[in-house]
């Protein structure tokens, strides 16, 4: 697939990841363990499939009336004393954050997990303006220290082994060389982050759910880092994609029951924090970000991917993701959901992603809001080819195949000569130019095809 010149495709990046097979095994087994925890948690409640269906329908309803829900939400939020901002794109979002921070003369921002700010590349933008950003989610902090993007939306540093984290902490946080005990490392991170929490005047959080009925929003974390940041700072900025709305507070229970069971197999996140109005002396700014979502909503075949609640279950179950690593997707959101979200933004740059799948369908089955992920992967393939992003060799071979298979006589001749060639001159196919042959034998070519057998039998 044609992507930007000089950039590696998923296949190439995954090939690199597979150079270390033991690491692939470790990555696969770690994520499979999480998938099993998910199964146990999900199958433990009898109404699981009903919950998924309910969540799916609530989200369908939201997408069909998003404009009204957003206006409703804004009105309630303003009444509650939240300052509401609208950002058409990533640049506008980053400018709004910068303006707020500049006005308050803030030079250090503490940030809890927000995939949206990753999508907007907020950290680099603010750092160029002289504002330091410290990610307070442990996994995010680890990849930030390693100067890497997260490889998973829920488990940002799942690609790193504890020894590698120990090395990073030794370099940046002064832990002992060779220290890799998770408890010791976590304690070091706690002490380091405590200092950041106490000295930051501004905190940024993501938003998991925004409730149109009440104007409040909910942030889910396991570490309590969103709460620490937001409550200790004078200014709390919350960034949310416009699709994060749910109509009523009563709906929240459906999503909270699904979210963490799907993500990690926990019954609920350790902290599900509601933010409704600023405390005396504090400010809450909420930024509603579009960044391509409105246009995305106009694509009927692909609209449902906006239902995503970012649980990561599709990544944990994906046999390709587990064996290629999150970074091979070269987009903020990796795995199957990333592969159907990314082409909404750039079909050329992400032309390879919908092809990084066997279309096995496991992703659609674990999705708590029933997004038809594998069907969308198939449909994106059609769109990407139609828009001209397939490479020439592939176009030609597909055209040739189509002509051959449309003609019974051409098919018979090609089949017979192909089998003859494989029998008498196997080197014609068994060579390094055939990617099948690199690690697999070709099937043994039989003397006669089924159709030849059938013809003889019928005589």
């Amino acid at each position: 697939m044609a992507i930007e010149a000089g950039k590696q495709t998923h296949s190439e990046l995954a090939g690199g990841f597979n150079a270390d097979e033991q690491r692939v095994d470790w990555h696969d087994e770690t994520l499979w363990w999480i998938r099993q925890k998910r199964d146990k948690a999900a199958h433990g409640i009898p109404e699981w499939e009903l919950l998924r269906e309910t969540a799916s329908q609530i989200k369908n309803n939201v997408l069909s009336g998003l404009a009204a829900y957003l206006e409703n939400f804004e009105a309630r939020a303003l009444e509650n004393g939240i300052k509401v901002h609208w950002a058409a794109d990533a640049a506008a979002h980053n400018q709004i954050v910068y303006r707020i921070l500049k006005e308050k003369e803030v030079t250090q921002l503490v940030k809890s997990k927000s995939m949206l700010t990753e999508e907007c590349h907020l950290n680099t933008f603010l750092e160029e303006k002289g504002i330091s950003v410290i990610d307070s989610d442990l996994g995010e902090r680890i990849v930030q220290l390693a100067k890497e993007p997260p490889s998973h939306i829920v488990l940002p540093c799942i690609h790193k082994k504890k020894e590698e984290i120990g090395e990073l902490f030794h370099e940046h946080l002064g832990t002992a060389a060779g220290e890799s005990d998770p408890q010791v490392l976590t304690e070091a991170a706690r002490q380091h982050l405590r200092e950041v929490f106490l000295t930051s005047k501004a905190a940024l959080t993501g938003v998991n759910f925004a409730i149109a009925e009440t104007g409040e929003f909910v942030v889910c974390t396991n570490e309590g880092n969103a709460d620490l940041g937001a409550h200790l700072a004078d200014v709390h900025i919350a960034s949310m994609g416009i699709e994060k709305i749910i109509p009523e507070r009563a709906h929240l229970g459906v999503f909270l029951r699904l979210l963490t069971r799907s993500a990690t197999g926990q019954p609920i996140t350790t902290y599900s924090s509601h933010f409704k109005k600023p405390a005396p002396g504090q400010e809450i700014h909420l930024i509603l970000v579009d960044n391509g979502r409105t246009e995305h909503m106009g694509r009927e075949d692909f609209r449902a991917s906006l239902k995503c609640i970012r649980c990561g279950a599709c990544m944990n179950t994906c046999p390709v993701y587990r064996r290629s690593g999150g970074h091979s997707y070269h987009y903020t959101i990796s795995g199957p959901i990333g592969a159907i979200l990314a082409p909404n933004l750039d079909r050329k740059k992400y032309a390879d992603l919908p092809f990084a799948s066997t279309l096995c369908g496991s992703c659609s089955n674990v999705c708590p809001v029933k997004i038809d992920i594998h069907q969308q992967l198939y449909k994106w393939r059609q769109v990407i080819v139609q828009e001209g992003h397939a490479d020439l060799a592939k176009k030609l071979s597909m055209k040739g195949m189509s002509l051959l298979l449309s003609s019974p006589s051409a098919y018979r001749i090609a089949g017979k000569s192909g089998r003859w060639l494989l029998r008498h001159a196997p080197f014609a196919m068994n060579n390094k130019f055939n990617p099948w042959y690199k690690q697999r034998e070709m099937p043994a070519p039989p003397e006669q095809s089924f159709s030849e057998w059938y013809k003889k039998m019928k005589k």
Partner: protein
Amino acid sequence: MPDNPLSLRIGLFVPCYVDQFYPGAAIATYQLLTKLGMDVTYPENQTCCGQPMANSGFEHLTDGCNTLFIDQFSEFDYIVSPSGSCVLHVKEHLKDKKQPEMAIGIRKKVYELVEFLVDILGVQELNASFPHKVGLHQSCHGQRGLMLSQMSELAAPFYSKPLQLLKLVKGLELVELSREDECCGFGGTFCVAEEAVSVKMGKDRLKDHLSHGATFITGSDMSCLMHMEGILKRDGSKVQVLHIAEILNAE
């Protein structure tokens, strides 16, 4: 079983690569259906359902295959094929602008072999014997697409049509797997476009079967088995792959 199965005309749809490389699977399918009293015809001008192009993003180039498929198969009561994947493609994507109702008609009467045996013929006994340790590979399109068996992701009661049939085979010992329905990594053109991941997936699937003592690996899609066979042979393994029709037809 329908009132008079002998009156049913079955069109045998043999996927192109099965026709060329695995005639044994198609012969077994033909013989099995014939043994069960079906009137089976193989329309001789069939080629391919068009899935290789469609899954690669070239569905717009499948018109020729679609028209040919309709032309070859519209006359039959049922169309039966030893491939979940190809059947799923026909069920979901067969179309023809000039004769849309013909395409819809075919979509409704095309069956994968296992589901035809279980759902339409209601097979309760088979005169088959296969005294070996067998691993069942669940091919994804058959399982998750045609719902041949319950999927491990769903909180729903267990069932398995292929298992139901394999249990009728004398002497067959089924091995348990650690991951009962993980993809083998074939995935059509994925197997060459994403060679590294594809092979790794295949190796991992095989390890599960082999470590549980399987001496044969079976399934309802020859494509997955072809991929795993390629890896087995490269490793010099004695373990063999066999299409489920060949086991159900083994006497």
